[in-house]
């Protein structure tokens, strides 16, 4: 099995799905000749032509709006938004249309689109190039939100997202793109949406993370009998796996790089409180970005949940 990074794994997923299914097409800014600013779509225009790999005008709302129209007509478009900070103009199309076409037409029309976008901090980027606003999308019923944490699960989850009959926001951590290499089969495989992954089992505390924060969490649990959950799909999230783990350990630390207020950790904590309060030995703690506008690189290390902050939270809940 070849060892590949996340960029290559995502490229492989796109290539395999385009080979398998002629209705899969790609559109976005610079995705063709240039292969995308992160080179995710490199080589695809050569293999599949300009009809299936479309370099569009600089037009985020137009890209997602057109993807909606393509999906209505029966294609399976995969749209790339260059950075998560530029996804905001598409929210109208995503919330007003993609999320509700199935409902509005009572199932006559569906919207099987994937919107891929690089998210998160850690690559010393410009303003609006490090956003992590996944919770916005989790609030809208009708949309699924998927965040892979490794090359292996990126490939399996992207293939499932493309095949999914509903709209999926697929968030790719820029920090992870080239950070890790992993065995990724060139054989077809998928990972189900809506299922979390227990990365390591443990008895004393449950840590919940996704995307790039998963790796920080794994660096923080040395010497602790911690159960680590990689959520992978945020919406709809795998409630069963979360509650089962919490009921076992009785302690929870949630880690995400988005600001704390109304971050996805809030949903997780509230859900755990509703479903497993009586099993808890300690307050649920969240280690998150701060309630500030995502800073430029000079502040980035202060902003991001660090190994120290995560360790402190674990020590805190272990006091109970």
């Amino acid at each position, binding site marked *: 099995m070849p060892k590949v990074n996340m960029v290559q794994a995502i490229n492989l997923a796109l290539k395999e799905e385009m080979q398998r299914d002629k209705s899969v*097409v790609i559109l976005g800014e610079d995705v063709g000749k240039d292969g995308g600013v992160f080179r995710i779509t490199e080589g695809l225009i050569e293999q599949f032509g300009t*009809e*299936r790999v*479309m370099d*569009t*005008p600089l*037009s985020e*709302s*137009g890209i*997602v*709006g*057109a*993807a*909606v*129209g*393509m*999906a*209505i*007509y*029966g*294609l399976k*478009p995969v749209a790339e938004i260059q950075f998560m900070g530029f996804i905001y*103009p598409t929210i*109208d*199309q995503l919330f*007003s*249309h993609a999320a509700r*076409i*199935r*409902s*509005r*037409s*009572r*199932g*006559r*029309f*569906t919207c099987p689109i994937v919107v891929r976008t690089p998210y998160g901090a850690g690559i010393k980027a410009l303003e609006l190039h490090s956003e992590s606003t996944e919770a916005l999308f989790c609030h809208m*019923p*009708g949309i*699924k939100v998927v965040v892979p944490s490794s090359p292996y699960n990126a490939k399996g989850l992207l293939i499932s997202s493309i095949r*999914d*009959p*509903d709209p999926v926001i697929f968030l790719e951590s820029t920090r992870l793109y080239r950070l890790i290499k992993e065995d990724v089969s060139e054989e077809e495989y998928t990972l189900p949406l*809506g299922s979390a992954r227990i990365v390591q089992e443990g008895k004393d505390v449950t840590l919940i993370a996704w995307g790039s924060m998963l790796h920080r969490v794994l660096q923080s649990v040395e010497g602790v009998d911690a159960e680590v959950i990689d959520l992978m799909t945020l919406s*709809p999230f795998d*409630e*069963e796996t979360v509650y089962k783990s919490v009921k076992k350990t009785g302690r929870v630390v949630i880690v995400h790089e988005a600001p704390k207020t109304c971050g996805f950790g809030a949903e997780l904590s509230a859900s755990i409180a509703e479903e497993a309060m009586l099993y808890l030995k300690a307050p649920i703690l969240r280690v998150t970005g701060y309630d500030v506008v995502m800073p430029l690189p000079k502040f980035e290390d202060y902003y991001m949940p660090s190994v120290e902050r995560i360790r402190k939270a674990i020590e805190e809940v272990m006091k109970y």
Partner: protein
Amino acid sequence: MPEKTIESFTVQRLDILDEKGIADESLMPSLSDEDIKRMYELIVLSRTFDQRALNLQREGRLGAYPSLLGQEASQIGSAFACEKSDWVFPSFREMGVYITLGYPPHMLYQYWAGDERGLKISDNVTIFPLCVPVGTQIPHAVGAAIAAKYRGDKIGIVTYFGDGGTSKGDFHEGFNMAGVFRLPVVFICQNNQWAISVPREKQTASKTLAQKAFAYGFEGVQVDGNDIFSVYKATKDALEKAKRGDGPTFIECFTYRMSDHTTSDDATKYRSKEEVDAWKQKDPILRLRLFMEKKGLWTEQYQKDIEEQSTLIIDEAVKEAESIKPPHPEEMFAYTYEKLTPRQIKQMKGF
């Protein structure tokens, strides 16, 4: 070096049938007497539908409703030019388009009474559910056109919006992409002179809306939107052009919203009676009737017959809409995703 003109454009305006019912025969599209009668009957049916909707709303039997009064020629003329295989992406006022394309009127009443099931379009009608957020349907037409082109389907895609819609970013993004990819789209703007209380000249400083197309590299025309022959001809030509692979067209139908914006609006707050009265002379039904009378296609008896027939259809539609059993609360969940989420299943247990 001297300055020179490197680009210029002229905006054409098409008028065929005037207020007295006299048509410019040299411009007349080819339409049989039967076609013309059918158009007239569809206008009468749409107006009957519309008037009934307003009455039902007053009686509390429908929710807020946007009347199409005055815009019948724009709607029926353009929809009449569509073939069965063409796709239509409407905004929210196009009840005349729905009716012309064969959408069951009872489902429209069902929808406006607040029941989503009214928008469950049957497989043989190629119109999309109406679009409430202004202008956002424009990129959908563009995407559908990309898909049709990719599939090699020789069809046209028609999308409707208002003068207000031309101020939205989606108008710009959709037009731009349609121009770049030379897509088979016909953009139809019903310039009814008002966007709620905002008059056309406050919407844009452009002299015409049609001219906006030229900035995106394709042709825009203005037509008399109260003249069904002009609208029909422009749409027909644009659809043929689209199917030949010659790209998009923008048609500005110059018309007037005779009614309030919706049943929740009071247009007397912001526009004069004189203005409305002046447009009454331009009524799209009136001039078509005069034209048909001259041609021997219209008699008092014919009018009585089709009015009766329309009333019958609408009576039936209202009865049918109101006899539909209310949806089960569980149906609220059914179409969020293909499958219910575990959380939705829990929430549904409450019912």
